[in-house]
């Protein structure tokens, strides 16, 4: 990991709680809040990649905003937005080879899913509440979203371990939020990853809030990254709103995994600008509203400012992407809406068993008859 520049650990307790202090590596900043590069830092992406990741973040933001609006209109069910976390999500996804690498998602990683090739109509189909939304098409290497917090992490380790055993290419990334790192599965998975040297990356999106519980109530540890020391696993803390720093540390972690050097934990410190989901009411437990938060932390503004300063982005490109994304959103929603009209009682029984038992087949026939009016 020689290419990753790190800083020395902070001295004050307050800084330790924010930045760690138990041997975790702290990734030095690259893209600063004002959209300029830190002194001596180099952009780890080429121009095409800068434009790709910026486009990904903008598209994700627009899709999120529309998702919240669709939910308010009653067109989709409960929805969780990634808004404010695009730097961490998109930056990490950019380091993956979508053809060989796998994403074991939590439920708040829209830019990652888009980068892995998820068709947008699938996303809407899922949130409309139709089972077709759960199945990713062949070639889109993503696991279904995970409701049981933390339970995805052993899957990520197992899949990576299996790739290693079969000498198949592929790195697996397990995404998890700060709240879910209190779950037992997170610790068991980390421990097993250490023992097996599986080609896996634990990517923690620490957005500061687990619904209403702030990060400092989640753990007394100096950082979430500090926990990896107990597994014999290197770990990094990175500013999740610095897309370049996220990308560079993720690229190193993926390279380590690919080279057979085992697992890495990355804690990307970002901020959940919006609510936990559309059923949540953040004003009951925090004072800062979304507008203030986004003004303070926005990873998208940061990158857009940087790209604009280099001539890689401008208002025309922005307008064109916004327009094409709205068209993409509308068309995808239409497709999803049509798909979701197809609902039959037999869908309850699809994919439960490879070879359904006789009793289950009889139940299907009975329910089909019940609704065959």
């Amino acid at each position, binding site marked *: 990991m020689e290419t990753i520049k790190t800083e020395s650990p902070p001295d004050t307790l307050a800084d330790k709680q924010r930045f760690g202090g138990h041997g975790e590596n702290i990734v030095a900043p690259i893209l600063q809040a004002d959209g300029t590069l830190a002194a001596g830092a180099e952009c780890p992406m080429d121009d095409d990649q800068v434009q790709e990741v910026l486009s990904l973040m903008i598209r994700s933001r627009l899709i999120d905003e529309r998702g919240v609006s669709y939910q308010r209109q009653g067109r989709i069910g409960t929805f969780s937005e990634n808004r404010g976390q695009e730097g961490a999500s998109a930056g990490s996804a950019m380091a993956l080879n979508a053809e060989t690498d796998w994403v074991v998602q939590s439920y708040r990683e829209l830019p990652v899913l888009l980068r892995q090739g998820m068709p947008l109509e699938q996303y809407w189909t899922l949130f409309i509440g139709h089972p077709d939304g759960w199945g990713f098409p062949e070639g889109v290497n993503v696991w279904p979203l995970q409701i049981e917090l933390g339970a995805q992490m*052993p899957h990520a380790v197992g899949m990576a371990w299996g790739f290693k055993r079969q000498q198949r290419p592929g790195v697996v990334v397990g995404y998890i939020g700060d709240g879910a790192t209190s779950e037992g599965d997170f610790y068991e998975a980390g421990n097993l990853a250490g023992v097996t040297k599986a080609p896996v990356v634990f990517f923690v999106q620490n957005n500061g809030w687990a619904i209403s519980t702030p990060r400092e109530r989640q753990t007394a540890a100096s950082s979430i990254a500090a926990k990896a020391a107990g597994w014999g696993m290197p770990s990094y803390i990175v500013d999740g709103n610095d897309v370049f720093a996220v990308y560079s540390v993720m690229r190193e972690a993926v390279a380590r995994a690919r080279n057979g050097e085992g697992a890495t934990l990355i804690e990307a410190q970002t901020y959940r600008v919006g609510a936990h989901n559309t059923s949540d009411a953040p004003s009951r437990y925090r004072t800062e509203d979304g507008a203030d938060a986004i003004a303070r932390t926005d990873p998208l503004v940061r990158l857009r400012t940087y790209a604009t300063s280099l001539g890689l982005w401008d208002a025309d490109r922005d307008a064109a992407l916004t327009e094409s994304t709205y068209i993409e959103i509308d068309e995808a929603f239409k497709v999803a809406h049509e798909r979701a009209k197809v609902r039959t009682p037999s869908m309850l029984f699809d994919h439960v068993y490879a*070879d359904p038992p006789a009793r289950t087949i009889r139940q299907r026939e009975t329910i089909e008859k019940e609704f065959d009016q």
Partner: protein
Amino acid sequence: MTTLTMVEAVRSALMTEMERDDRVMVLGEDVGKLGGVYRATEGLIERFGPDRVFDTPIAEASIIGASVGLAASGVIPVAELQFLGFGHLAFHQVAHQLARLRYRSRGKLTAPVTIRAPFGGGVRALEIHSDAYESMYANVPGLKVVAPATAHDAKGMLLASIRDEDPVLFLEPLRGYRLIKDEVPDGDYTVELGKARIAREGNDITLIAWSGMVPQAERAADTLASEGISAEVIDLRSITPLDVDTLATSVAKTGRAVIIQEGPLSSGFAAEVATTIAEEVFYSLEAPVQRVAGPDTPYPFAAALEDFYLPGQSRILGAARKALSA
């Protein structure tokens, strides 16, 4: 054919399948050099190496959770839970993750995982080693639960379980590991999952049991035979899927049924069997269906109390006589 104990039959199945299919991998606590605390995996690590016979950290949720991921990657995991009683530490991974992977991913990811676990009492073990929790797993859609009672079926059903495209919980009677001994074919064969076995034919009453309770049912049938009563003994073999036809045919013939389970009575799997009989052949019944089970108390951790807990001959014969006298 060779006479094997139950645990030898399990080992023979693992040997056979690992030899045949190099995707198969065994993982669990102490399955490697020790060969498992009951020696079910003895000799495997010498033959197949530590990558295919993997000693895991003591962490049940990740043994099952990692098996889900291993299966999705193309490996065929055979995971051992050292005791079914420790399975609660992994229950969410079994019920929510393993059993639903095919469903949640709409068929894209599948989990051909076999979980082997000894269960049931009678060996004077400490707390939580002896509980018979099969009914909890029987309520999990997407999961098959099997519990053979003979060495022959243990080998054939374990081979069928490993080859099944869906997850199977394969339960092994702790007390029967060395006590149960019968003729087992040397080579490769399977016994279909979801099919009960008629352990003994009879006309007057049906005794229904599975796993470690089957030998108890057979002994009771011997006693009844000496009194001129012909008891049919059904060894369910599969908890889920349940072989409804074999049950219905037998009880339609005898008109009387006693179901014997080791776990606590209330909401146990015997209740499911009794209801199934009532639904299918109620008008053939000559007497109320009887259940014999452990009491609704924790499984005793004290050897002194174990014999009071476990359903034995007096309880089984008492229930049979009650059914016969109605």
